[in-house]
């Protein structure tokens, strides 16, 4: 194995199979150092591979753990009330009667009302940023501001709602002649509507930007107006993406706790109309969890959490599936 290579430049001939050894000439030192380190590196490499795998397993364990915890801790309530839990119209912890229909209704009313109010705004922003004005400082500013809506903490929305919005709603209620409390489902929906705008808006924007230019051009070349292009090309192309955005907004609205808790009025009675005070599943848990003084009561609240968990997860998964379907 002789070579004519200039000695100084020649790499060391080192065995590296089982237990590597080599001539200790000065010019091989750096190669040796390199290889000796490499043995340590291989061990480190294996440790690293194992670590990230354990972390990935841990995420699965975490979620399974959450489900088991919720299911196990709500077992008392599930045993005692069964499915009647969901339809029961009375929530009276003192008499150990736990029916969550008022909260179910409260949650659905606030969430869907909020959705109805916010969707036109979300879609407008999505069209504004995705189709009409995709570039420039103004749309950039709008985009950042809309993202900021999602960044403001919900407790701040709640506080502002309590101090500013509720009095306004109260005078509005007085004007139209309903029971003027201010606190209630209507106020909650208004706050929620603002809070959930960004979710559908940003997803809608990216979906609208994904519409192939040649489809739009084909329509324009046939003499379509902008509105017709939007209605005939963009909307059909993006409808499942837009729907996914609405789903994500809905999931957010269903689980929102603080802002709602602060302005909904917190009563366990069934709301008579959208101006009545009420409670949502999340707000009941927030209000009563630390006051639950006996096991069945606590367990009922956790079952409420379990229901909330299942509903929001299902809604979110539908949204995510739709997004995945669209991006493929």
């Amino acid at each position, binding site marked *: 194995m002789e070579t004519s290579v200039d000695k100084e430049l020649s790499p060391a001939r080192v065995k590296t199979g089982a237990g590597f050894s080599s001539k200790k000439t000065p010019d091989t030192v750096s190669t040796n150092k390199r290889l000796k380190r490499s043995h340590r590196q291989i061990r480190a490499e294996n440790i690293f591979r194992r670590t990230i795998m354990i972390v990935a*397993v841990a995420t699965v364990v*975490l979620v399974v753990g959450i489900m088991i915890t919720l299911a196990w801790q709500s077992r008392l309530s599930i045993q005692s009330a069964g499915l009647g839990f969901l339809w029961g119209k009375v929530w009276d912890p003192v008499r150990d009667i736990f029916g969550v229909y008022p909260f179910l209704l409260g949650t659905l009313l606030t969430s869907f009302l909020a959705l109805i109010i916010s969707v036109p705004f979300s879609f407008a922003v999505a069209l504004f940023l995705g189709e009409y004005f995709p570039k420039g400082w103004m749309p950039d500013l709008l985009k950042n501001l809309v993202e900021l809506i999602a960044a403001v903490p919900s407790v701040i929305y709640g506080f502002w709602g309590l101090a500013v919005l509720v009095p306004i709603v109260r005078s509005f209620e007085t004007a139209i002649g309903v029971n003027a409390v201010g606190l209630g489902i209507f106020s909650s929906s208004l706050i929620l509507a603002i809070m959930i705008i960004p979710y559908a808006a940003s997803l809608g924007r990216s979906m609208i930007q994904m519409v192939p230019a040649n489809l739009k051009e084909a329509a324009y070349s046939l003499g379509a107006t902008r509105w017709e292009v939007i209605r005939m090309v963009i909307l059909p192309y993006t409808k499942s993406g837009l729907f996914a955005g609405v789903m994500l907004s809905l999931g957010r609205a269903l689980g929102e706790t603080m802002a709602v808790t602060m302005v909904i009025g917190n009563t366990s009675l069934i709301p008579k109309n959208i101006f009545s005070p009420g409670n949502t599943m999340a707000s009941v848990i927030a209000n009563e969890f630390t006051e639950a003084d006996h096991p069945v009561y606590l367990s009922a609240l956790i079952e409420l959490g379990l229901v909330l968990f299942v509903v929001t997860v299902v809604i*979110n998964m539908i949204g995510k599936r739709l997004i995945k379907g669209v991006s493929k």
Partner: protein
Amino acid sequence: MSVAIKYRIGKSTAFKTLVIVLSLACVVPLLFILVYILQAGITKINWNFLTNLPKPVGESGGGIANALVGTMIIVGTASIIAIPFGILCGIYLSENKNSKLAYWSRLCIDILQGIPSIVIGIVAYFWLVKPLNSFSSLSGSMALAIMMLPIVVRSTEETLLLLPDSLREAAYALGMPFHRVILKVIVPCGISGIMSGVMLSVARITGETAPLLFTAFGNPYLTTDITKPMQSLPLLIFNYATSPYNDWHDLAWGASCILLIWVLLLNIFTKLITRKWKVQL
């Protein structure tokens, strides 16, 4: 004929106007809220406000030092738990795109992202508060860490997936072991994306209240013991805002203002960092 065309053009213009009006209308409540909070809060903030403890009802003055320190400890602990964990998980997902474990892990991250924060509070209550027999800031941090996790994992995974394979190949061809390829080449090249995810997740959990209600619980005194109940800014805002006392409302306005400024700063900072640290590929 020309009337029909005019009608169509008019309809198109009308729709465009509607879109513009609605879009700009979205921003009005946000600006209204920002200005209102800043106005109501900024006058309450002074040195005493930042360094004193809250006074009992009836005495004016007092500050929110306990909540500031508490928030820093709670959020800091949550970050220490969630950031390394989230980044490592993101690395796993981007490096093993098609493995079964990656599929399940991704599904779980999606689920985690959708869980309402109050439910995570319940779980943290049973995992740490009940066994330790006391509300504690540690349990609050744990709940917040669970909330941070999906954001960090997702941003890490998405950033790393965008890096070209040639980068990995260049590193492997130099005889670099897997962990060095990842930690010395892949992660540094994606650092701007990862950092923006981390900072947004910190901004997000700083304002979270619901998971702290029955974990960190709140505390009118200053404490740094993570096994004891601890005050935090959003908890303080919630408790004082829903109280009937004007002095407490003032504290809550000041606290809201600080929380808001912090969140705004983090968001602006994220934008700057993303631009500055972006590695030109």
